[in-house]
């Protein structure tokens, strides 16, 4: 019925072969069959009208040469680092607008609305204060104001935790966005981090107010007076945000194609809460000759918690020192660089699946 000239693979044969990489050639023009007659079987695709022009596909090398000659660039290739960073900087309005909009809609729909951003950490901290501040007196030896100690630790660690969890799930939750627009993909986890950072602002303010309030609780070392060092709080918050962003970027790449990671990370974050002394004093509870004491005391999250407590400066046992700041800055910048580079390493794969 149809004449098939050489070089053409009839469509029915294609369905058997298509799992292999049989080079496909479109069919040459064949005689037009009578389409108005009754058909007992489905018409195969070897019956196009005469004159359908054929284009044999170029081989890969020919395609490459043609592309080079015409000055075309290959799509989906990871851009060099400098161009990538410039691209992200160029998208800063987008990142900022996206983050602030998402922060705004976070708590819409509930009666208390934006107040929940602050109320939730307060409720978390309240539980911790009751248990570790009043019930377990020995959890922070040497610390006068245990309630403030726990409050600062709990709020700060929750911020770190929130940023990392936001980073892990950022790419899968924004897959539609990635598949609709071209932009450096680091924008997605960075905007998730920025959303959490924006939401931390009111929490920081609540932290300050509550620390003053704890001064009036019984057996907490007396009133807490504001100091000049409290002005350094936003800087400490920025450093913690930078550090958390590095961790978030690291996990964003891992969690991009493997949803299982989103189940493992909370386990490590819970462990980290204890290993960072958010609610009890590591310095006070670990023996001086235990091998893990320096490990826990100098690990980055514990350093940041100590930095926050030192900035508040109401504990003689936790002084603010230049060494502490230096260590915090090193951790923040170092972790962010490593996380960013790790994320950039797989830039061309995001959006797949």
């Amino acid at each position: 019925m149809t004449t098939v000239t050489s070089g053409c693979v009839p469509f029915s044969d294609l369905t058997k072969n298509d799992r292999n990489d049989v080079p496909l050639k479109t069919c040459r023009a064949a005689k037009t069959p009578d389409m108005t007659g009754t058909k007992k079987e489905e018409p195969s695709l070897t019956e196009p009208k005469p004159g359908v022009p054929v284009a044999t596909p170029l081989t890969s090398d020919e395609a490459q040469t043609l592309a080079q000659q015409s000055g075309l660039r290959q799509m989906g290739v990871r851009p060099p680092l400098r161009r990538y960073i410039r691209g992200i900087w160029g998208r800063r309005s987008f990142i900022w607008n996206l983050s602030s909009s998402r922060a705004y809609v976070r708590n819409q729909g509930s009666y208390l609305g934006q107040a929940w951003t602050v109320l939730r950490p307060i409720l978390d901290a309240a539980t911790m204060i009751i248990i570790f501040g009043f019930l377990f007196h020995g959890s922070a030896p040497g610390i006068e104001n245990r309630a403030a100690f726990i409050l600062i630790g709990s709020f700060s660690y929750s911020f770190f935790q929130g940023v990392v969890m936001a980073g892990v799930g950022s790419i899968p939750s924004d897959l539609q966005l990635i598949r609709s627009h071209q932009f450096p993909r680091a924008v997605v986890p960075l905007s998730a981090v920025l959303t959490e950072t924006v939401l931390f602002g009111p929490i920081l303010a609540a932290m300050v107010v509550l620390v003053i309030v704890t001064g009036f609780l019984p057996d907490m070392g007396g009133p807490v007076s504001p100091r000049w060092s409290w002005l350094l709080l936003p800087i400490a918050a920025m450093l913690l945000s930078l550090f958390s962003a590095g961790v978030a970027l690291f996990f964003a790449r891992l969690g991009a194609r493997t949803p299982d990671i989103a189940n493992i990370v909370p386990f490590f974050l819970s462990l980290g809460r204890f290993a960072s002394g958010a609610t009890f004093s590591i310095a006070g509870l670990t023996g001086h000759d235990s091998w893990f004491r320096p490990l826990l005391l100098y690990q980055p999250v514990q350093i940041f918690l100590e930095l926050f407590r030192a900035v508040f400066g109401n504990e003689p046992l936790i002084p603010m020192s230049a060494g502490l700041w230096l260590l915090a800055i090193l951790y923040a910048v170092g972790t962010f660089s490593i996380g960013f580079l790790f994320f950039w390493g797989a830039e061309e794969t995001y959006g797949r699946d």
Partner: protein
Amino acid sequence: MTDEIDYEVDEENLPERVERQPLGEPSVIVDNVHITYRVFGARKGGTTQTKTPLLNRAISLGRPDTGPITEVRAVRGVSFVARHGESIGIVGTNGSGKSTLLRAIAGLLPPSKGRVFVSGEPALLGVNAALLPRLTGERNITIGGLALGLSLRQVRAHTPEVAEFAELGDFLFLPMSSYSSGMSSRLRFAISTMQTPDILMIDEALATGDASFRKKSTERIEQIRDHAGTVFFVSHSLASVRAMCTRVLWIDKGLLVADGDVDEVCDAYDAFVKGRSGASAGANLN
């Protein structure tokens, strides 16, 4: 994976028959592109005939055909060269991989194998996933415009005309969750027309809204089309493909089956579709 809207366009809303322009340099080269989706989810009596042992099913190692992951090969080895000045239509039955291929060319979906070379920045019209329903229309115009790559100043400058084009009226300052579906699709379309790209891709964006809006959107697309060098157009409506395109690619089950002049390929496709009796070909994974 991709949203497809099927509408047949009324006769009077069809754009003018496109004029053939002299062809220039190659602007898009697609080289043996394969795209495979991974889909998580249990398959009851799926596509494999073998019975997997209970242990294998319990400990899923993510291998295709044995674990809870299915691989869907949406595009299997498509290659072609597009030149500056061409208007290329892509036709195919449901699930044939047209929209997936378009997104791969636009750089939005990385191919599993193969390469795509482009000369300018491609842009896909009619898509805007950056919008947040709980925000006002105006805020969403800002975010949508920034997502397209415009600067904040440009977005602010274009906002009034976008709002007017989408015919929102007072609803501009209400959250998008209060819009009717027609209003939100008009707004999405209006936002995506803020860009004037070099390589334009249109994915069934023509037929949303009532008759007057359809007329407006067709005119707007023609305006953008005149600025663009190469245009790709995916549609089920053969009438609009015949009107808008000079060359047509016919994709079936992820394979490029025909590639040629618009009238010839459209006639062949038309005949094929009318002669077919079964369900869409894209419904089979193998």
